[in-house]
């Protein structure tokens, strides 16, 4: 038996091991499959496979009229459904140049910020759970329940809200709803301190997140990151400030920025966003004006021929809608959604090179992706 070719340095059984993470995996937040090529414990390459939750929302919407599409947008980012509704309705209002009354814009701001808090609650719960801290998950979901109750009162549903209409709101807010929102804000401010007490100075948490998945500003922009992952790298990009929509131009709030662009900074940015959202909600709920909640909208919505792209700041990042209308039919000719999770997830391959398997789990958590939005 001749000696096999002397493979210099090739370890006996740790040539590149391929590990399939998902699509059925506890920490991939939905049906996401990551094919990891490992050299020993280090990740050499991570090929992200998506498409398991593709329902063809864009193709479906070309066969529905403008009012029915609001339902479809609920099912994309099901963690922050109301934000999708607001985004879509604003795009069509921009297309038809409809002026939305101030009261509706205030309610929309409150709804968007409540959704941001609910989404961040779910994020901090699952992210901490992936890294081992079980308790934060329960606390975060206790608070999220409060928000779901508020939405149940506003639009009767807890997950798929269908909370907006083109031109404003379907119904005025129930009496006393804004006082309930203010009560929620009082409760929530204390609770954010609770999460931070458990995690922010926790040595093990720091060791698991500091320096993991570092990405600088320019590269983050080039990779198309948006929202907290982009601001975690220090890029001051927030559509609520740059291209204010709803009633954000009348709100005072800061945009938290990270420094090193690692998982810890993304964590700190989102925790700070909790507080900023509460601040916005307090201002909006206190200053909500009287007046109608629906603008002048023709009974049959048929936008003029033309196309537009309108983006809003969803909890995950820049959520953009590109609607093309042919001016003749009540269905959009082309309906395209730019999902933030889709572009943020693309960075996973670059981020987890050279890290360990345990870090990949932390990175997926820190990018905060929702597969309903990625696959559409």
């Amino acid at each position, binding site marked *: 038996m001749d000696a096999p070719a002397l493979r210099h340095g090739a370890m006996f059984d740790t040539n590149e*091991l391929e590990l399939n993470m998902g699509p059925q*995996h*506890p*920490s991939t937040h939905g049906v996401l499959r990551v094919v990891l090529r490992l050299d020993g*414990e280090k990740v050499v390459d991570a090929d992200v496979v998506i498409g398991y939750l593709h329902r063809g929302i864009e193709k479906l919407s070309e066969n529905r009229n403008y009012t029915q599409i609001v339902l479809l947008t609920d099912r994309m980012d099901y963690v922050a459904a109301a934000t999708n509704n607001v985004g879509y309705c604003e795009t069509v209002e921009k297309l038809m140049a409809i002026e939305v009354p101030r009261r509706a814009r205030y309610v929309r701001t409150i709804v968007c910020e409540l959704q941001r808090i609910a989404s961040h609650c779910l994020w901090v719960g699952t992210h*901490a*759970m*992936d*890294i*081992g*801290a*079980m*308790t934060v*998950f*329960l*606390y975060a979901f*206790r608070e999220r329940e409060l928000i779901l109750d508020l939405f149940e009162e506003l639009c009767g549903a807890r997950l798929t809200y269908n909370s907006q209409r083109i031109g404003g709101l379907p119904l005025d807010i129930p009496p006393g709803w804004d006082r309930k929102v203010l009560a929620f804000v009082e409760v929530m401010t204390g609770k954010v301190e609770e999460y931070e007490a*458990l*995690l922010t100075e*926790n040595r*093990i*948490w720091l*060791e*698991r997140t500091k320096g993991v998945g570092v990405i600088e500003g320019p590269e983050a922009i080039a990779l198309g990151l948006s929202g907290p992952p982009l601001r975690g790298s220090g890029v001051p990009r927030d559509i609520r400030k740059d291209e204010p929509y709803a009633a954000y131009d009348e709100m005072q709030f800061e945009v938290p920025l990270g420094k090193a662009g690692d998982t810890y900074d993304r964590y700190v940015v989102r925790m700070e966003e909790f507080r900023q959202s509460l601040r916005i909600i307090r201002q909006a709920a206190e200053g909500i004006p009287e007046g109608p909640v629906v603008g002048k909208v023709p009974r049959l919505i048929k936008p003029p021929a033309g196309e537009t792209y309108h983006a809003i700041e969803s909890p995950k990042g820049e959520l953009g809608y590109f609607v093309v209308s042919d001016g003749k039919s009540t269905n959009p000719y082309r309906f395209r959604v730019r999902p933030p999770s889709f572009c943020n997830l693309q960075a996973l391959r670059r981020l987890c090179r050279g890290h*360990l*398997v*345990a*870090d990949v*789990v932390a990175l997926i958590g820190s990018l905060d992706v929702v597969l309903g939005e990625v696959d559409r």
Partner: protein
Amino acid sequence: MIDTFVIPLVKILVVLNATLVAVSYMVLLERKVIAWTQSRLGPMRVGPYGVLQPIADAIKLMIKEDITPVRADRWVFTLAPIISMVPALIVYAVIPFGPTVTIFGHAVPLYVTDINVGLLYIVSVASVGVYGIILAGYASNSKYPLLASLRASAQLISYEVAVTLTLVSVILMAGSLSMVSIVLAQEQARVWYGFVQPLAFGIFFIGSLAETNRAPFDMPEAEQELTGGFHTEYSGMRFALFFLAEYANMIVVSSVATTLFLGGWLRPFPNVAWLGVLDLIPGWIWFLVKSFVFLYIFIWVRATLPRYRYDQLMRLGWKVLIPLAILNLVATAIVKVWWLA
């Protein structure tokens, strides 16, 4: 006749059954305590306040189908849980629950036996426990459990070194290996070694957390990364054995810690005279209270702390705990020699 055969037999029976009951109720205690920290109730359905839950779990695991993966090494597959459970139980032979007590005229020492290599006996039996994990990973004949079992055993062995070094510094203080004489030395010195050797106590606590694969060091069973760790392929009674072995080890570690650092059956603050009233409570109750406190901290740590990554865990073991333990040992030796001179 009675003293030589009947009493030891009764003691053995009592200790074994008490341990098995304690282990199953440890499971319930853990679920309840973690539930309370997470502002929820924990198991409430079986029996009043979920008290009968362990029995329900035991029955469930017994009834469940016991699957052996195809082409798995059948013998080794069955042997592994037994190997991991047995050491945890036989360690109780040397743990002193209380001083010698006279019942119905017979002097009954409240420990099964007292051999003069007591502490070494515990450490060596614990080191044999590693086989259970390695063989479980090997016998399940699939990639993930193999990886998980290698990592788990590497973690166990490296933390065993740190724990043994802390035990040596306690032996240095007590001057003997036998557990009973260690407690007597603490009684005679009228101080708990936990106060005299705080560093050793801390290292022992962290090391024992890692040794029992718990809390921040539960890498091997980390469901999030490798799917389920070394007992993925186990189900039914065999899985129950593994599950109970982990809790039995936890109780073993806490009773050893109580004996070495918290003064066994001594009442708190033995040096404070006017606390004499505490003596009314018999010694073994003190022992149980102290180990319960230690167990409670185990569970509390699990509820709050996130998990270390595997390389950080090994780095902490080798580069932090072992040097500190050696330092502590040398310091104790110097103090002892200087004290004697």
